[in-house]
């Protein structure tokens, strides 16, 4: 029953609400309910004997203007998304906290996993060093992922969210730079036990050293670029959808 004009009006309202930071789940549900309400109002008008054009106009009038509806939604902080309510925290501190949290949590998970493997006899007792070899490889891959892949993935995810909400780029850029600096200058070393009963070690450190300055700066620049490319692409795709 919705006419092309109606769909355009709802589309415009949706873009406006998302652009102003209303949570997508609320936007989706609000627009669904508004569309249902509009449909009911048009049906009621037709049932009273109005022609389609008059019934449609009356339904819009009952629903209220786009400005009225948008203002009533934007006045309610409960309906805003987390990035819109706390842009500084989410974009600047969020990526770092998330990254550190995931790293610590997965270290515990990995420790539990290897302990379970040994408890249930799925890994033979070590003879000369930690075995099997695939576990060593897995640990190396995971340590690399924590330092080089996870920060970019988190930064890109947050940049994508901010771009979709059309939030102020300065916070996204600050968050990307902070996370990239932290991860770019991090170094890690994995020491596997060489004797039975000896503990291994995962060391993570942050330092600005002249020896590694070049590679650290390179990693930092790569991380910033990766995050900002995602942000730019997401903004661009939103922009082109607006134009369509």
């Amino acid at each position: 029953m919705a006419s092309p004009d109606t769909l355009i009006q709802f589309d415009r309202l949706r873009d406006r609400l998302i652009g102003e930071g209303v949570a997508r789940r609320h936007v989706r549900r609000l627009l669904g309910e508004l569309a249902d309400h509009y449909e009911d109002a048009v049906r009621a008008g037709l049932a009273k004997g109005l022609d389609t054009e008059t019934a449609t106009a009356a339904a819009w009038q009952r629903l209220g203007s786009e400005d009225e509806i948008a203002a009533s939604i934007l006045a309610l902080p409960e309906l805003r998304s987390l990035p819109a309510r706390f842009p500084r925290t989410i974009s600047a501190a969020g990526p770092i906290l998330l990254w550190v949290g995931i790293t610590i949590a997965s270290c515990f998970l990995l420790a539990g996993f290897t302990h379970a493997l040994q408890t249930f006899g799925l890994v033979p007792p070590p003879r000369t060093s930690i075995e099997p070899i695939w576990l060593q490889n897995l640990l190396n891959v995971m340590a690399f992922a924590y330092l080089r892949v996870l920060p970019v993935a988190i930064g890109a995810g947050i940049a994508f969210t901010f771009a979709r909400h059309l939030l102020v780029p300065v916070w996204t850029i600050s968050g990307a730079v902070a996370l990239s600096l932290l991860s770019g200058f991090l170094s890690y070393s994995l020491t596997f036990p060489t004797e039975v009963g000896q503990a291994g070690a995962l060391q993570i450190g942050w330092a600005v050293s002249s020896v590694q300055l070049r590679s650290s700066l390179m990693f930092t620049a790569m991380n910033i670029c990766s995050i900002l490319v995602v942000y730019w692409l997401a903004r661009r795709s939103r922009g082109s959808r607006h134009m369509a």
Partner: protein
Amino acid sequence: MAKGKTNPEFMTGVPELLILRLLSEREMYGYELVQAIEAVTGEEIKVGEGVVYPILHALEAQGCLSSKRKPVNGRTRVYYATTAAGKRRLGTLVGEWQRITGAITLAMKGSKHGIA
């Protein structure tokens, strides 16, 4: 002929009060609720109907309302009902409303301070 929208200056908090009051009797979906508001107020109170939904969502976010989807005549409706917290809030709002309307009524009648 339907009356125009109620003076917005007097409407702060009124839709919330009416919504909680009506939903405390039975669950309703948005369109049904708007019809009920018009019916119980003798069409004296008219709100922009689209404005009702953000209030419903905010009340739900505050824990005053619960919602569930129900299929009705081939369409899915979102039905709202008051929760225990919503009933407590309604009690508070009714108390405040009665206090204010009592005071305004008293003032309109003219007080002992003698408004001519």
